[in-house]
């Protein structure tokens, strides 16, 4: 028995080693990519920007999009001469959407001498990592971490490119009200998730101001997230014309499918968590037809910046269409650039000095990005930009207006 146990232990240790190797291998390869592009700059005088997000696992759609979106921005900046004349080195670490792994990834990036953190991608991980960056006083821009807890976990060193969750709730209610999409609203939300409950609470508070009546609000929990028939039945019986789905696309695929089986076809409206639903392997996208998402980016927009970004993203990923997360990451890198330029920061400054200079600059700059024109930031780290929505038509995201 002992022998068996020790063999098992040995095997698992070897397995961990192998997994470890795989990760560092990937990191090295991005490192060398960056190194080749910055070959011209002397004596390693570069801005080292680290990224953290899920490249594998359930939220990998987000992480990969952010990784690639940021890569495009960095390549563009390096080609155009860098930030204040210094090239950028980029290192993206996987956290599998796990808070503990995210902190490990942060420590790994610190060992790599990171100057600035672009991350993390998901709110839960970001809430775990931000106290560490606050402690180190490291300048942090999260492309898609949308919880308000992220801002309160920092010391003013963290800035968001996307809306905070509560603001998404308010923006959703305003959007539905102003566009007169419906008046009777049913809601399903994940009561075990901060992202979902945050949006739900603000949405419910804002709804009466917009003339919306919430006829049913049903919850589910992380342990019970496959069967939504009862919630849908209640919402159907309550006569809802629009069902608000403030949660992630994994559960949304099941909700849409079960609603279709029931013959229940209201309008469905979601937030940025639904972004990615069209990329789920083997999902019948016709079920998502007509679903509306509050998201700041639509890949079919015809403005030059979006067209060029979509083209570069396709070249980098072999034909994929970027989602909102990729655009958020692209904007995050340009936001970092704008802040560093405004602050006249240089890579030889201490991490903490870069942070102090950059965060003072953040409230003064205005960035025209893919996800909004004239984005500005409050001292708290919240972004200010106009909400936009897309509707899923023929299996693709189309701008609403």
């Amino acid at each position: 028995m002992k022998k068996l146990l020790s063999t098992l232990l040995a095997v698992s240790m070897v397995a961990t080693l192998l997994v470890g190797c795989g990760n560092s291998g990937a990191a090295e390869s991005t490192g060398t990519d960056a190194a080749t592009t910055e070959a011209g700059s002397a004596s390693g005088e570069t801005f080292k920007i680290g990224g953290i997000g899920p490249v594998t696992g359930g939220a990998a759609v987000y992480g990969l999009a952010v990784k690639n979106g940021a890569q495009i921005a960095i390549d563009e900046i390096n080609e155009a001469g860098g930030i204040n004349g210094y090239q950028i080195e980029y290192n993206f670490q996987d956290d599998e959407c796990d808070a503990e792994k995210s902190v490990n990834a942060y420590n790994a990036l610190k060992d790599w001498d990171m100057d600035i953190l672009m991350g993390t991608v998901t709110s839960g991980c970001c809430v775990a990592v931000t106290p560490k960056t606050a402690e180190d006083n490291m300048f942090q821009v999260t492309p898609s971490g949308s919880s308000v807890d992220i801002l309160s976990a920092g010391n003013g060193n963290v800035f968001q490119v996307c809306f905070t969750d509560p603001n998404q709730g308010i923006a959703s209610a305003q959007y539905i009200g102003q566009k007169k999409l419906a008046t009777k609203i049913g809601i399903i939300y994940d009561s075990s998730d901060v992202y979902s409950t945050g949006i739900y609470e603000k949405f419910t508070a804002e709804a009466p101001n917009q003339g919306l009546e919430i006829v049913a609000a049903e919850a589910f929990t992380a342990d019970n997230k496959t069967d939504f028939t009862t919630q849908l039945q209640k919402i159907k019986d309550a006569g809802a014309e629009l069902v608000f789905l403030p949660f992630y696309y994994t559960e949304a695929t099941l909700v849409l499918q079960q609603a279709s089986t029931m013959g229940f076809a209201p309008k469905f409206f979601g937030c940025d968590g639904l972004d990615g639903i069209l990329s789920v392997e083997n999902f019948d996208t016709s079920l998502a037809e007509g679903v509306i998402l509050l998201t700041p980016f639509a890949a079919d927009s015809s403005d030059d910046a979006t067209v060029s970004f979509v083209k570069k993203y396709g070249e980098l990923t072999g034909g994929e269409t970027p989602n909102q997360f990729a655009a958020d990451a692209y904007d995050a890198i340009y936001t970092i650039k704008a802040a560093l330029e405004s602050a006249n920061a240089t890579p030889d400054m201490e991490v903490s000095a870069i942070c102090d200079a950059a965060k003072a600059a953040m409230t003064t700059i205005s960035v025209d990005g893919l996800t909004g024109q004239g984005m500005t930031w409050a001292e708290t780290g919240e972004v200010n930009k106009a909400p936009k929505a897309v509707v899923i038509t023929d299996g693709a995201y189309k701008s609403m207006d």
Partner: protein
Amino acid sequence: MSFLNYCINGLSLGSVYAIIALGYTMVYGIAKMLNFAHGDVIMVAGFVIYTMMNSLGVNPIVAVLISVIVCTALGVTIEKIAYKPLRKATPLAVLITAIGVSYFLQNLALLIFGSDTKMFTSVVKVPQLKLGEIIITGETIVTIIACIIIMVCLTLFIKKTKAGQAMLAVSEDKDAAELMGINVNATISLTFAIGSGLAAIAGALLCSQYTSLTPYTGAMPGIKAFVAAVFGGIGSIPGALIGGLLLGVIENLSKAYISSQMADAIVFSVLIIVLLVKPTGILGKKINEKV
């Protein structure tokens, strides 16, 4: 009308619990061990069918049959490697090992398939039944029929065949059974083989009903099914069916009429109350320990 709809939804959910609970209760009834890895064998079955159908384009029925074979082999292997060496150990050691096996299977699936959700294509091709406002899905009909067939077959197998009788003997007294010339190890292996084969069928039906597939797909239904088995009287085969269906209906009715958030808490409170009133579960038999 909605009440009936809620009940039907409850039955669909309950039928899935029931079919998983059948495997649980069967292994517990014979081997007297809680195979916590049962839910994860179900997940493995899901992935086998998914891979067969989506990557290799195999016919759904053939895919299910292959998954039954794979899971049976897996069950026997797990039993040989993880449980057999612990035959004489305390039940607690076996229980912990079972939890270990469960994590092992989850992480193995994570390594091979990654944790992104896969959309499973239903293997059931039965059309849904529409009675006015009430809709019963083909998956529910098939699951309930499968439960009943499995229940009857298992009962007949245990009552009428030699191997079944051997199982019964082993469940009552391992040592005495051995003295009577029954190969206890082979009998327990057979139990695991059947239990895991059933898990494969349960996996096919679970994933057809709730079409998202991740390495954790089996974990929560596995626990719920365990509750259903205890509810119906663990070790009792008809008990598993009744326990599963009741659990599903109670869960959905409490979601509908009390609180969708508290549904799980209510389900577990019902379990506690049932166990307080009738510690052996609904159909469980009290076995007097002879001293």
